[in-house]
């Protein structure tokens, strides 16, 4: 521990010496260092492995489970066997095949919505945070209004009026989901707005949009990434919820529609657990993996949590409890 702290101190003086240089120089090695820490983080590795696994499944669906997932494969509610790995659904389709093919649409809708929400959120949030004044007042009001209106009833009402289908789901989820990333990015932009490098850019006559997207945004990539992951978790959960209610196109194959049909055919009450447990586990696994990535991002970029980890390591080493140490991060 002693040695570790010493090296941290040395790092501090090194980075301290670099500080007075022009702003472009220190920002790059700093960014690379959080990326490196992120890659070494155990939670991040677990999260990325699971997400990559499901992306591979989605891409390789024709190889993993050949055949049409909507095709009638056998009698209804057959138990898992060598022929049907996860049995058949209440309509006689192969559950395993449906799950594998359903990965495609579920992930596509999830990631597309997540990306859209975060991009809109970034534009709105950075605009509000950078310009301040009445622009900030109006945009913040808008964000808070969208945030406070309860999600599901609004989603249901919106989705019911649009033609059911994946595109409508993406539109509806984006319309309700952009506000959270916007709020997070706004507060980040507010704190960066007062930094010297922004003032320098303003004084040197750079265009506002250039400052926002080329000066401020690159300095909050980790927050952007965190919002992206968070929005994707939200999108997958909400997409599944809408499909479960029967509000997306129930003719397509996705994890949500698998659950929809399992309920509609009341498979649960004939004991056909294979029709809904695997699908739910897949959703939970993806959500869990994404949450892990977000926790890792938080740990790597949030100095307080990082310091806390070191403190708790120190505590474990000394096996002393009830110790009160102010978590201070050096370096």
């Amino acid at each position, binding site marked *: 521990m002693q040695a570790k702290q010493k090296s941290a101190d040395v790092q501090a003086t090194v980075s301290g010496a670099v500080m007075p240089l022009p702003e472009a120089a220190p920002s790059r090695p700093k960014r690379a260092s959080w990326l490196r820490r992120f890659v070494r983080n155990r939670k991040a590795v677990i999260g990325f492995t699971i997400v990559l696994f499901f992306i591979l499944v989605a891409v390789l669906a024709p190889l993993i489970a050949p055949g049409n997932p909507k095709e009638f494969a056998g009698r209804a509610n057959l138990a898992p066997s060598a022929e049907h790995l996860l049995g058949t659904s209440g309509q006689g389709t192969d559950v395993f095949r449906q799950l594998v093919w359903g990965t495609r649409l579920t992930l596509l809708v999830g990631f597309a919505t997540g990306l859209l929400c975060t991009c809109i959120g970034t534009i709105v949030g950075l605009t509000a945070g950078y310009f301040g004044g009445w622009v900030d007042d109006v945009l913040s009001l808008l964000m808070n209004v969208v945030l406070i209106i*309860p*999600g599901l*009833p609004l989603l249901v*009402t919106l989705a019911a009026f649009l033609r059911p289908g994946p595109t409508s789901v993406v539109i509806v989820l984006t319309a309700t989901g952009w506000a959270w990333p916007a709020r997070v990015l706004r507060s980040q932009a507010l704190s960066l707005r007062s930094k010297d490098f922004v003032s320098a850019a303003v004084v040197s006559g750079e265009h506002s949009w250039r400052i926002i997207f080329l000066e401020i945004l690159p300095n909050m990539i980790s927050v952007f990434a965190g919002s992206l992951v968070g929005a994707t978790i939200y999108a997958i959960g909400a997409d599944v919820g809408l499909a*479960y209610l029967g509000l997306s196109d129930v003719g397509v194959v996705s994890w949500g529609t698998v659950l929809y049909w399992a309920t509609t055919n009341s498979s649960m009450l004939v004991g056909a657990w294979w029709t809904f447990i695997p699908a739910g586990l897949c*959703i939970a696994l993806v959500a869990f993996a994404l949450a892990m990535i977000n926790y890792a991002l938080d740990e790597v970029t949030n100095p307080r949590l990082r310091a806390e980890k070191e403190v708790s390591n120190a505590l*474990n080493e000394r096996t002393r409890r009830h110790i*009160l140490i102010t978590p201070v991060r050096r370096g």
Partner: protein
Amino acid sequence: MVTALITVYAKGNLVMRYLLRRIGFYAVAAWVSLTVNFFLPRMMPGDPASAIFARFQGKLRPEEIESLRKAYGLSDAPLLTQFGQYLSSIFHGDFGISINFFPVKVTSVIATGLIWTLLLAGSATIFSFVLGNLLGIFGAWRRGGLVDSVLPPLLIFIGAFPYFFVAMLALYFLGFKQNLFPLRHAYSDSLSPGWNMAFALSVLKHMTLPALCIVGTSIGGWMLGMRNTMVGVLAEDYITMAQAKGIAQRRIMFNYAARNALLPSITSFGMALGFVLSGSLLTEIVFSYPGLGYLLLQAVRNLDYPLMQGLFLMITFAVLGANLLVDMVYVWLDPRIRAR
């Protein structure tokens, strides 16, 4: 005497200004949801009533279409006049007539579900909030202890499941397989509602499992939030000062640290309310619990647009009202608002 009065007045004024600002915000939010609700059916191609009629493929009676037209305030009047009429009917508590339960008013249909949702989601949310925050306090207090090391990862894992999937699992394993809990409805079908012991017990028995599901999936957020704020608060100087003065540990934990750490939790309580409510609506659907969620499903399945929109408005207003209550609690909890 006079100065004391002035300070009291000034303090009251500050609180009033804060609350008025919040009320103004909720009024804007209510107005936005009302406007969305008004324009949605009008954005459908053609006349919404006819469009709905087409979706029903002729299964709708003419008087139902007429009532739909009336419910939407569709007339040849200009849009602004229609909007005014719509607002005035909403203010008079007229949300139109349900298609599915024709000719019952939407408000009466919603009233039947409201009490069950209040009972289930309300008690589950409060229970989860209190327990989650207590666990967070203890977790931060004994950092690295049993509560702190076992519960957070477990709760994050459970929290990753969609609400209704946890409900499905619970229903399947505890209800269907083990037969420990009833499978559906809010009370036994053989009983009629009344203020007697048998009915109350039946209601309690029916709400246990759905409530546990809501608590299980939402408690993690409260606990982690509270724990993280508490960790920060415990590092403050005034806590060290209190320790140095030798104040009883319990008192430091609850009156010094937890009271301050609770403030962000209270703020997020209002925000999270809508989210938790959405989850509990889905949970109700899994358990066929006759609350608002179940009504929402009925409305979706039967394309009952007036009911759907009525539910949307009512739930939104309820959440806004609850948030206003939270703000009032906040004034009482945080003296800084009163004395700034």
